[in-house]
């Protein structure tokens, strides 16, 4: 599929794209439609004897949307969430969204704790379990916020933003769990050296605590990694169609800074 290569209208399409707030798939489809029509009109004018540059200028004047038309297109293709929240002041909306995110994070934390309580895994928790749970809450909230931005708000202006922190946090949670287990192993070794007769009590206790800590850290880290993978694939898919149309000479890569 040949998008923008050789069309000569790539700069025009990029300028139009900067003014549009449509979700990316619809944005790309519209630009592709516009590109064809621009080429057709310019071609027809050239066939009628109009110089090529003038033909391009006339085609742009006839077909490229002005400010009012862009607003109309944005309104027409807005997601359900955008239509619902249109009456709200943008500052207030941002406040509501952040407040909801904070509540979501707190809810995740409560949910995690409740789940562990139900399974009777908090009778003797590792001190590292709490920061791991906190990190897990933050991680899942970050992934949820990114998914919300992509699929509910349809805001595709900064596609890759927020993805790397998800991966880094997932890795950090795993690292924290491992570090906690090692730290407690070190202290267990010290305790056994001081009182070897207590091995029968200390070792099972250590094993129970670390198995909970490492299991929770591993599960949360894997969940974060999976979320990162799914979101990255979605973003790569969205941006590849755009890149093919608007930057046909760009080297293909998974990540594109926007």
């Amino acid at each position: 599929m040949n998008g923008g290569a050789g069309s000569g209208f790539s700069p025009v399409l990029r300028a139009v794209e900067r003014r549009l707030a449509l979700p990316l798939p619809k944005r790309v489809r519209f630009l592709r439609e516009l590109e064809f029509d621009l080429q057709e009109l310019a071609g027809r004018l050239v066939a009628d004897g109009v110089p090529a540059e003038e033909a391009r200028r006339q085609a742009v004047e006839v077909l490229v949307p002005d400010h009012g038309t862009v607003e109309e297109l944005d309104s027409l293709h807005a997601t359900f969430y955008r239509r619902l929240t249109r009456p709200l002041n943008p500052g207030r909306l941002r406040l509501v969204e952040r407040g909801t995110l904070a509540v979501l994070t707190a809810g995740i934390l409560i949910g995690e704790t409740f789940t562990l309580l139900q399974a009777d895994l908090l009778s003797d928790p590792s001190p590292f379990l709490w920061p791991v749970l906190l990190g897990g809450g933050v991680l899942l909230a970050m992934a949820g916020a990114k998914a919300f931005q992509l699929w509910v708000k349809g805001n595709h202006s900064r596609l890759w933003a927020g993805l790397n922190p998800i991966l880094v946090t997932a890795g950090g949670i795993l690292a924290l769990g491992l570090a906690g287990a090692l730290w407690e192993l070190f202290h267990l070794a010290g305790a056994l050296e001081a009182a070897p007769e207590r091995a029968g009590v200390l070792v099972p206790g250590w094993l129970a605590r670390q198995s909970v800590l490492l299991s929770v850290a591993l599960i949360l880290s894997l969940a974060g990694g999976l979320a990162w993978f799914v979101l990255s694939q979605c973003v790569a898919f969205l941006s590849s169609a755009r890149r093919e149309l608007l930057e046909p000479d760009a080297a293909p890569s998974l990540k594109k800074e926007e």
Partner: protein
Amino acid sequence: MTETEFDVQAFARDINELLVLSTLRSGAKHGYQIGLDVESESNGLFRFRHGTLYPILHRLEEEKLIRGSWKKDGGRQKKVYSLTRAGERHLEGRTSRVQEIVDRLLTVLRQPGEARA
């Protein structure tokens, strides 16, 4: 007879939509061709500029009055629109309404000099 208030902007939008629907009666076309045909069939009276045709097409497509599909054209992709059955019915119904509005307008304009209070 009581009438709901006549909305001039809605009427203007209706006219644009009806022009697009009527030109699709002769077959599927892409956006620029639709604009060209409307201009040619109206002898230049109706013209779409600054991309104003696109929101009209997209709105009609969303309302299922026209159907958009992608076709290959010499290595390029073009979006072609065709009239749906619902679009044909809509066109017939609204054309009658436009006729009614124009008739009433002409009736008012051609009133022999009535004194107004």
